[in-house]
């Protein structure tokens, strides 16, 4: 039997035996960022479409959580930096070739936008809220009169944020499992469905819940379709890509991926949502929580499995 034996004298911490440089803060941030992108996208989109009154929770209430999500995500990112004191160097250049530079600047736009949007709708939670400062009142007037522009900025930058979390991975040709541009749409779809799930959790209005459940169901089906494409693309590609796909097709990540991401995160909530839309009584929180759990697991599994995939030479 032909055999190949590779002995390497290298054993750098976090590099060998396989890459282990990105730990839990990265997938956590990807989840929080994608989730915030999803919530902000629907809020701004339905505001632009003039549905503010019929979809109150989507447009006004749900976005109030996004500043917290984004700040927590940024905190996780900062925690993961090894040279924390130099983080400001991100904002001294714009590097078009680096997805991380794109992401850093996108966050610089979308985070303040989420704060402003949340502040404009703070009365959804505290009905008698009054800003104690004069400048804040003037700022509120200003942004209220330019809300349409703000909504367009949010639509565009939330889409960039949602896609970029996937592009960040797909730009690394050194990790074959990540090296597919389908990851951009896949991460966006995952973020949007998570965002829709949160609005379903927050909404108290049945017709609004049904509407968002229907959107969530469509996105879940698209996501399933993208996952099928993901494997088709890999299995028709080079040996390193076939080996990478095998991590999920018989390899060590097979059970976590198919059980948590596909079955628990997509198939089961999609079936429950179909039952709900057919008029059966299903507690709305169950599919929503499963979708959120699936989105989180999707990012954790992709981050860790991707670091195990590599070129062999």
């Amino acid at each position: 039997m032909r055999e190949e034996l590779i002995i390497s004298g290298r054993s750098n911490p976090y590099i060998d035996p396989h890459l282990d440089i990105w730990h839990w803060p990265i997938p956590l941030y990807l989840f929080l960022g994608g989730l915030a992108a999803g919530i902000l996208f629907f809020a701004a989109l339905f505001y632009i479409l003039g549905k503010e009154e019929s979809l109150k929770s989507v447009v006004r209430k749900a976005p109030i959580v996004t500043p917290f999500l984004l700040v927590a995500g940024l905190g996780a990112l900062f925690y993961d930096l090894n040279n924390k004191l130099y983080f400001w160097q991100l904002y001294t250049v714009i590097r078009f070739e680096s997805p991380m530079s794109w992401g850093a600047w996108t966050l610089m736009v979308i985070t303040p936008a989420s704060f402003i949007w949340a502040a404009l709708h703070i009365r959804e939670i505290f009905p008698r809220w009054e800003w104690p400062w004069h400048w804040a009142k003037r700022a509120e007037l200003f942004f209220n009169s330019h809300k349409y522009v703000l909504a367009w900025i949010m639509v565009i930058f939330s889409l960039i944020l949602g896609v970029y979390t996937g592009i960040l991975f797909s730009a690394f040709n050194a990790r074959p499992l990540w090296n597919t541009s389908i990851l951009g749409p896949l991460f966006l779809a995952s973020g949007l469905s998570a965002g829709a799930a949160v609005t379903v959790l927050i909404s108290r209005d049945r017709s609004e819940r049904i509407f968002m459940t229907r959107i969530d169901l469509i996105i879940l089906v698209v996501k399933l379709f993208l996952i099928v494409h993901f494997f088709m693309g890999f299995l028709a590609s080079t040996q390193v890509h076939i080996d990478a796909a095998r991590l999920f097709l018989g390899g060590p990540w097979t059970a976590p991926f198919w059980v948590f991401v596909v079955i628990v995160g997509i198939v089961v909530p999609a079936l429950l949502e179909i039952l709900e839309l057919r008029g059966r009584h299903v507690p709305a929180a169950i599919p929503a929580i499963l979708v959120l759990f699936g989105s989180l697991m999707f990012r954790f599994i992709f981050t860790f499995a991707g670091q195990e995939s590599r070129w062999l030479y």
Partner: protein
Amino acid sequence: MRYAMAVDTRKCVGCSDCVVACQTENSVPVGYCRDWVVEVTDGTYPQLQTEIRSERCNQCGNAPCVRCCPTGSSHYADGGIVLVKPRRCIGCGACITSCPYDARYPHPDGYVDKCTFCIHLIKRGQQPSCVAVCPTRCIYFGDMDDPNSEVSRVLSHRRYKSLIPEAGTDPYLYFLL
């Protein structure tokens, strides 16, 4: 000017002197290395063949680490050598992830570190420490643009390969076969 290195896999005995010389010359933290020795045994017993390679950063012409660096800390220096500016590095790990050769590592001081072809020695007209120390003289170094440099001469009459050129990195570390 384009610096390159060629390692003779037929002369290398895998003694790891290059590794120790590099660690000493560049004060590489204990437990880490910028260069390393790989032994690949291939074939069907008893017809086995072993190749010994002293590996390090490939100083790629199309370096994914430079491309993905969000701050411009990873850059091309004179002669195509890929370097890290520690005071611009935020330690995000993108370059480490982007390297198909896994040639970079996180330095305990926070920044990312890698082989520099001993640029500080080259500037003084000396050879990189791994080249200078090699007891079998199996590492050749020099300027690819100069047809009379040691590396150009050895590559002109020997068969050679580079590692995973199909990754599109345009590597400048060659292995003589």
